[in-house]
């Protein structure tokens, strides 16, 4: 007997709950050589900004125990070329598309929302307000409830129609629940938890920071307990808000852990760097585990670790 493995986020249907994580799959072209993108619940595209962006200088990467630091700095072609090239290509593949956007100002988010509001074939918008690779820590909107709320509210006012907004939050805050509540109040339909954690590696041979811009975002299995904690706390505080969980998932077992904490879908990021087929093996393994634990609907497993508190 097979189970109902589908999920929904803010009223949008996805046949499987495994997505790619923004910035870890480009716009899908490369991975499509390894598997059909329709096998994913959705592809979450690399965060796009208004203008073309070179990103940061190299070295941009440092491997760390069970993880890595990246300091890409949102390299990308800008919204015009993205809409011209990437979206039509993804639509041709039949992929379900979640477009991730990033801005340097509240106005940037408003502009990007207006550019995307009438584009057909998009399932949802991920609003990345938590990229750690910016010049000024004050530009990480998700580090403060007010700036987080301002960015989401700008998108809400400009997006119109029915496109759901998923706010991507940073775990590098004292109280992620207060940030989550502020963006939901500002109009977010769902939350993406978690972005990378700010970290640093010093090369003990050169005796200098390994990354050109010194700091980078930590991802990979090392951060998974942080993701589980953040998802669990937010699910407990906001039981009705859908959550796309991510953070160091590299097996079906890991994905199931985030689901039990409260994730309605799970995005695969760093694991794809080590194995382009990771999202496919995780999909298979998660379905087997959910069924083996006796759930006939995937959605019944979401947040199941909270049941003692609810009883």
């Amino acid at each position: 007997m097979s189970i109902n493995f589908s999920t929904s986020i803010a009223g949008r249907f996805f046949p499987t709950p495994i997505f790619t994580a923004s910035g870890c799959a480009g716009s899908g072209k490369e991975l499509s050589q390894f598997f059909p993108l329709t096998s994913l619940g959705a592809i979450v595209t690399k965060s796009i900004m208004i203008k073309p962006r070179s990103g940061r200088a190299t070295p941009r990467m440092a491997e760390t125990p069970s993880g890595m630091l990246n300091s890409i700095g949102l390299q990308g072609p800008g919204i015009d070329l993205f809409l011209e090239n990437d979206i039509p290509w993804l639509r041709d593949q039949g992929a379900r598309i979640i477009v991730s956007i990033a801005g340097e100002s509240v106005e940037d988010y408003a502009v990007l929302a207006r550019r995307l509001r009438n584009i057909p074939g998009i399932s949802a918008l991920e609003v990345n307000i938590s990229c750690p690779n910016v010049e000024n820590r004050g530009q990480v909107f998700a580090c403060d409830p007010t700036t987080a709320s301002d960015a989401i509210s700008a998108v809400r006012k400009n997006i119109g129609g029915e496109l759901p907004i998923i706010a991507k939050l940073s775990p590098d805050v004292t109280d992620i629940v207060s940030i989550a509540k502020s963006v939901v109040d500002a109009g977010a339909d769902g939350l993406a938890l978690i972005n990378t954690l700010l970290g640093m590696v010093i090369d003990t041979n050169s005796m200098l920071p390994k990354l050109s811009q010194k700091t980078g975002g930590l991802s990979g299995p090392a951060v998974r307990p942080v993701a589980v904690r953040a998802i669990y706390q937010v699910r407990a505080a906001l039981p009705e808000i859908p959550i796309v969980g991510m953070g160091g998932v590299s097996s079906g077992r890991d994905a199931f852990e985030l689901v039990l904490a409260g994730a309605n879908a799970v995005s695969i990021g760093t694991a794809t760097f080590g194995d382009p087929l990771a999202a496919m093996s995780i999909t298979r393994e998660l379905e087997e585990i959910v069924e083996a634990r006796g759930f006939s609907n995937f959605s019944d497993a979401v947040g199941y670790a909270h049941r003692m508190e609810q009883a």
Partner: protein
Amino acid sequence: MASDGGTMINSKAASIKAELISNKKAGSYNHMVFSVGELAAHCKPGNFVAIKVGGPTSAMVLRRAFAIYRASMRSDGMGLLELVVAPYGNGSKWLASQEAGSVVDVIAPLGTSFGIPVEPVNALLVGGGYGSAPLFALAETLKQRGCRVDMVLGASTAAKIYAPLEGKRSVNSLTITTDDGSAGTMGRVSDVLSQLIQENEVDVIYSCGPMAMLQAITEISTAHDVVHQCSVEESMACGIGVCMTCVLPVQGDDGVIRMTRTCVEGPVMDGNRVLWSTSREIPDGVWGK
């Protein structure tokens, strides 16, 4: 043309389990042979492979990239992939410690390959350290096309020169340089290039090695108006074009300088189009700076 995400990865790339057939020490390096089936037929000089390291419970989450030393189909249908591994970091040490019979997870072939001229030309192949690895198969291919092939290999010391006997047979001359003078001429490969270019009337330079060496070769090749195809070495996380860590500023066909993925649009690139820089800053004029 070079553009963000516009170029597909090597169309022959596939993820496979490969059995290690043999693993032998060669100076400071390990010569490793893997059975990869028909994939071997698709590997060209300059292509690289990405290998998972450390075993199933490893804390090393990223693959390691290695230039292909040689790839061949045997008459019995077995496809062989040969690598020269420098066991310096934890990942390459793990790989070099594997014994014949073990199975590793390989993605191959990846990246661009060296361009082979249609007409016979005079080629100069320049390798730094284990950067000599992809040059021997290239030398054979060029010889088959009727090219004159001269080679220069440089390293810090003699044990780090990788020049197997069978490789030497495919070149017209081999010049060796070492920083400490323990083999060949004392000095760097760039010290002997100008003379070799003139003596052998070199049309094209093929190179592989550290970035500083490639930059020095580019300066010399530009001065002599010689084509320079180089295989670059920028640290990679994924090897398949999605992570954007292995970028270099490179001028595209349209004249625009972009931060370009060396795993997809490289590792073999036109040296004269790379904006070599060690400043740890994005050079002025790069698209989107």
